[in-house]
């Protein structure tokens, strides 16, 4: 049986999503995408710098990829909604990663504004993937608001610190009926594998790949780790805990 992640009517078989920021050269992006077999990549929307000639990122993204614009730079729901609408109008499909950050110190997402933006954009037919701090009540509200998935952070953006929010993400995986995609903070393939073993539907990685010494090889490493973690999840956990027979059994009284 093919193991497919379905989001917004699209079928995704590679559960590593790739962010395109921070690569030393954009030419590495298509190489990394191909080496890892990535199907979903994120991009941002920015003002054109009139002083400098800039490269067109779209030219570096293979055509069969799903291009998911994020709303980075948005400090509130209204700005996120505006960016999403512009991106869609620009022909970038109807996927959007909501990212509302009003905190420049830790770059943590603003869950409240994120819920508001999700509600508006889902109502307009967007496939909304909100980036969030892993909070169960917020995730439930995002479900109600019409999100297509939830994307809790593993650690602060760009920190490469791993799955620090493990226990909270686990709760989301247990309780939320949508795909849970761990976004931000994963620094090593083993951490991505761990998230997938726990039952995450996918992971989104950027910094750890883009800033590796060999980003293309690291992209492939992450892809393999994600696939391995997923396979382990599907295979079911083994018997690691042993409840040894005690000298005074709890059920010894049963005779019938």
């Amino acid at each position, binding site marked *: 049986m093919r193991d497919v992640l379905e989001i917004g009517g699209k079928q995704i078989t590679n559960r590593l999503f790739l962010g395109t920021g921070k690569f030393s050269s954009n030419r590495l992006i298509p190489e990394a995408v191909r080496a890892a077999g990535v199907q979903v990549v994120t991009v941002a929307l920015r003002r054109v710098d009139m002083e400098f000639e800039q490269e067109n990122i779209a030219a570096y993204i293979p055509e069969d990829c799903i291009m998911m614009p994020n709303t980075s730079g948005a400090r509130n729901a209204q700005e996120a909604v505006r960016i999403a609408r512009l991106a869609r109008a620009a022909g970038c499909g109807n996927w959007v990663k909501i990212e509302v950050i009003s905190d420049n110190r830790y770059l943590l997402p603003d869950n409240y504004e994120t819920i508001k933006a999700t509600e508006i954009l889902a109502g307009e037919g967007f496939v909304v993937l909100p980036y969030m701090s892993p909070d169960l009540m917020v995730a439930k509200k995002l479900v109600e608001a019409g999100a297509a998935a939830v994307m809790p952070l593993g650690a602060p953006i760009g920190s490469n610190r791993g799955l620090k929010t493990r226990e909270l993400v686990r709760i989301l995986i247990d309780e939320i009926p949508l795909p849970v995609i761990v976004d931000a903070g994963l620094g090593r393939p083993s951490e991505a594998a761990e998230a997938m073993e726990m039952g995450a539907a996918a992971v989104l990685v950027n910094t750890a790949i883009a800033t590796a010494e060999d980003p293309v090889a690291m992209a492939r490493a992450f892809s393999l780790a994600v696939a391995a973690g997923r396979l382990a999840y599907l295979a079911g*956990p083994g*018997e690691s805990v042993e*409840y040894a027979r005690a000298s005074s059994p*709890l059920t010894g009284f049963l005779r019938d």
Partner: protein
Amino acid sequence: MSFYDERKKYEGFDFEGFFEQVTDADVRRAINRDRLTALDYLTLLSPRAEAYLEEIARKAHRLTVQHFGRVILLFTPIYVANYCSNQCLYCGFKATNRLERKKLTPAEVEEEARIIAATGLKHILLLTGESRSKSPVSYIRECVEILKKYFASIGIEVYPLEEEEYRELVDAGVDGFCMYQEVYDEEVYARLHPAGPKRNYRYRLEAPERACRAGMRTVNIGALLGLHEWRTEAFFTGLHADYLQRAYPEVEISISPPRMRPELGGFEPPVKVTDRNLVQYILAFRLFMPRGGVTISSRERAELRDHLVRLGVTKMSAGSNTAVGGRSHPEAVGQFEISDGRSVAEMAAMIYSRGYQPVYKDWQMV
């Protein structure tokens, strides 16, 4: 969406076939999972899992101590009326049974309340029998007003109400809701409830959801064991509890696994549920819902209840009497026979002796 739709998903599910295919490895895997799926729970309810009862008990015991501590909450029922408009084939209080019908006056309720309160209990469960005309919501309210003076927590086990009515009772001081679906299998349900308002399967099934929405703090559900295949009934009770806990995370959800007792009408339970079966059910439920409450009534005999203290149970009734006004009039006839007739003090002593603490008052609205 309600649990009715959730249950429908299992229509046509081949339970027999599932149980036949369960392997030892499946059982071990289900035991060791951190978070059990519905089918893991069903696996633990399978005949195959009986061989692993002690292992399951170890984990159930550990989980219970972890989430609840070594405590057992004690409560007692108070039957204030036994009028009933239903004809449940298996019940001693059914409309066609000839017995003295009675409804306590406010003064009599107060007298019973005083006797119970003297035992130290603070949690009370108010039962009326299922007659909307004889025991209307206004009467229930009146009883609650009296009980409030003596008890910290008041639960109700009455006929199914509208959400608004539950809210009215919550406002009056009720914080607990208890209702047994009796049978989750819809066909068997129809057969066992030939007449009366209780024929409405869905209205009863959705009563706990109405109670949750109305602001009840604790909701207790259950299937009456012995009426139908216990493994599937236990399965649906667990699914129901899990559904409620997910939909209403602010409510404390508990189950009861009551076994049929001989009662007035002399109904012979079609299915035998052994002690071992009962224990398997409680343990499987504990692994499926580590934070779910499990209530054991005085239907069960003392020796079994003593053992169950360490097997996942969180609440027990004590000093019970199933007759209307039975505490002030010991000769009155009850709904069913009680097996464990120990007093509150005797129960407390037993619980202490097993290294647990009996709790009389879990909380109180201030």
